């Protein structure tokens, strides 16, 4: 019993450490003093600044567009990749494909960024929106593959055989049997790719040119110049958005499982 108490103290301590920086940012976003120490007075000035900063808003928009497009395209490629690995018969080839698939997941961002910089320069692709989008697609594909593949392996092969016996062609088997079954994996992969893309800094930093910027890159360059409370205001807005998204996701997945449970009954 006493042991458990100490355990709780430890856990609370870890949670305090994890959340202090985040709440520190939020708290000082209301500081009229202009620094991240000595709270002078409450103000919404920094929020006004964020909403009047058209350049920053444009960058937020860029970040969202890149994230949405790259995760959509990489989801398509990832599903194709998972199907490819699933259908390969030779164990050796399957392992080789999986290993190559995982290279981009374990590689440090710096390596991915530097190698893509070389690749794009060689291919004559101008650095900017296109290069950022392509690199985000490239590093999201293996993530989607890893989210979809387990779902495929869960699927009983007899379903496919049954469908074929009943006269379904390959296209029907794919769209009516396989895809509906792996839909949860596809969604998980899509959201994972979205998160990775929104959060990426290092890869983007390498392949972005002078004209194009995403939020992470912008925060980096602003933070290098020192503290500016409009970053705090921006982070508060982003944090609220994250919490809403997480809560929504949690709610949907619980509701989804309940609906699924009802359907199963």
């Amino acid at each position: 019993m006493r042991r458990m108490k100490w355990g709780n103290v430890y856990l609370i301590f870890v949670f305090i450490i994890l959340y202090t920086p985040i709440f520190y940012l939020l708290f000082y976003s209301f500081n009229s003093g202009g620094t991240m120490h000595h709270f002078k007075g409450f103000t919404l000035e920094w929020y006004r600044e964020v909403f009047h900063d058209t350049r920053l808003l444009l960058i937020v928009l860029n970040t969202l567009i890149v994230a949405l497009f790259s995760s959509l395209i990489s989801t398509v490629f990832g599903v194709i990749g998972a199907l490819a690995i699933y259908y390969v018969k030779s164990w050796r080839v399957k392992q080789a494909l999986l290993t190559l698939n995982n290279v981009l997941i374990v590689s440090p961002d710096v390596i991915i960024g530097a190698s893509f910089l070389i690749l794009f320069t060689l291919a004559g692709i101008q650095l900017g929106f296109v290069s950022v989008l392509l690199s985000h697609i490239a590093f999201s594909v293996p993530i989607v593959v890893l989210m979809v593949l387990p779902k495929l392996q869960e699927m009983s092969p007899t379903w496919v055989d049954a469908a074929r016996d009943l006269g379904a062609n390959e296209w029907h088997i794919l769209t009516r049997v396989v895809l509906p079954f792996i839909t949860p994996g596809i969604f998980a992969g899509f959201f994972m790719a979205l998160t990775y893309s929104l959060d990426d800094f290092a890869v983007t930093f390498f392949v972005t040119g002078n004209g194009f910027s995403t939020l992470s890159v912008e925060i980096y360059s602003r933070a290098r110049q020192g503290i500016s409370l409009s970053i705090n205001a921006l982070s508060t807005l982003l944090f609220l958005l994250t919490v809403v998204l997480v809560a929504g996701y949690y709610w949907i997945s619980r509701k989804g499982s309940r609906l699924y449970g009802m359907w199963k009954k």
Partner: protein
Amino acid sequence: MKSSVRNVYLFPYILWIALCVVAPIALIVYDSFFDIEGHWTLENYEKFFTPIYLKMALSSFWYAFLITIFSLIIAYPTAYLLTKTKHKQLWLLMIILPTWVNLLLKVYAFLGIFGMFGLANAILETVGIGTKQILFTDFSFVFVSVYIFIPFMVLPIFNALEEMNPSLVDAARDLGASGWTTFRRVVFPLTLDGVKAGCQAVFIPALSLFMITRLIAGNRVITLGTAIEEHFLVTQDWGMGATIAVFLIMIMALVVIVTGNRR
């Protein structure tokens, strides 16, 4: 007929592998043989084996090691205690939530916390130690890195603990093992795969962090990642940058092999 349909999937995927995995790595290796003027040379490799670069590689290794160890020390009890809580999935979500806050923002927050008049110094002042220069030191670099990586260490260990059959612990206790012996002989070995996965998820990125070294450590700490960024984006010496990248890839492969679980 069937196999041709399957090749339809294989073709675009192999194309992706060739363009996005094989070609970039091949290009890194290729570029490492050129000097800054574009002449074919082995000079970069010679340069890497001079004391300056070897020392940098070694210190990068050392910092990554420290970061991994500290993350493990903090994350293992956390993961263990989490499995004992009532709403463990919810608490786990709370551990993961900070990773959804942009990494740069969290690093930026520490500029304020560790600053001369920030929270950390305010605490030190009240405890009686007095104001210290925390920002731009090795300590701040390791602390912030560990902070960033804790969730990535907790998650695999938590999963490993959850997969473990609890009756094995009961059996050990019934056979007279003390709490510590049970942990050392039963729990830890059974969760070793999770620990390995966590170490892999921390060690490799820790070798290549460059934004934290730039923002928090004030360029005092130079990791392999910082050096690569410097060579590619600042001095434009792509050959040397690529050479360091080649070594980083080799270290990475080594880590994956060592921590990889063969089944």
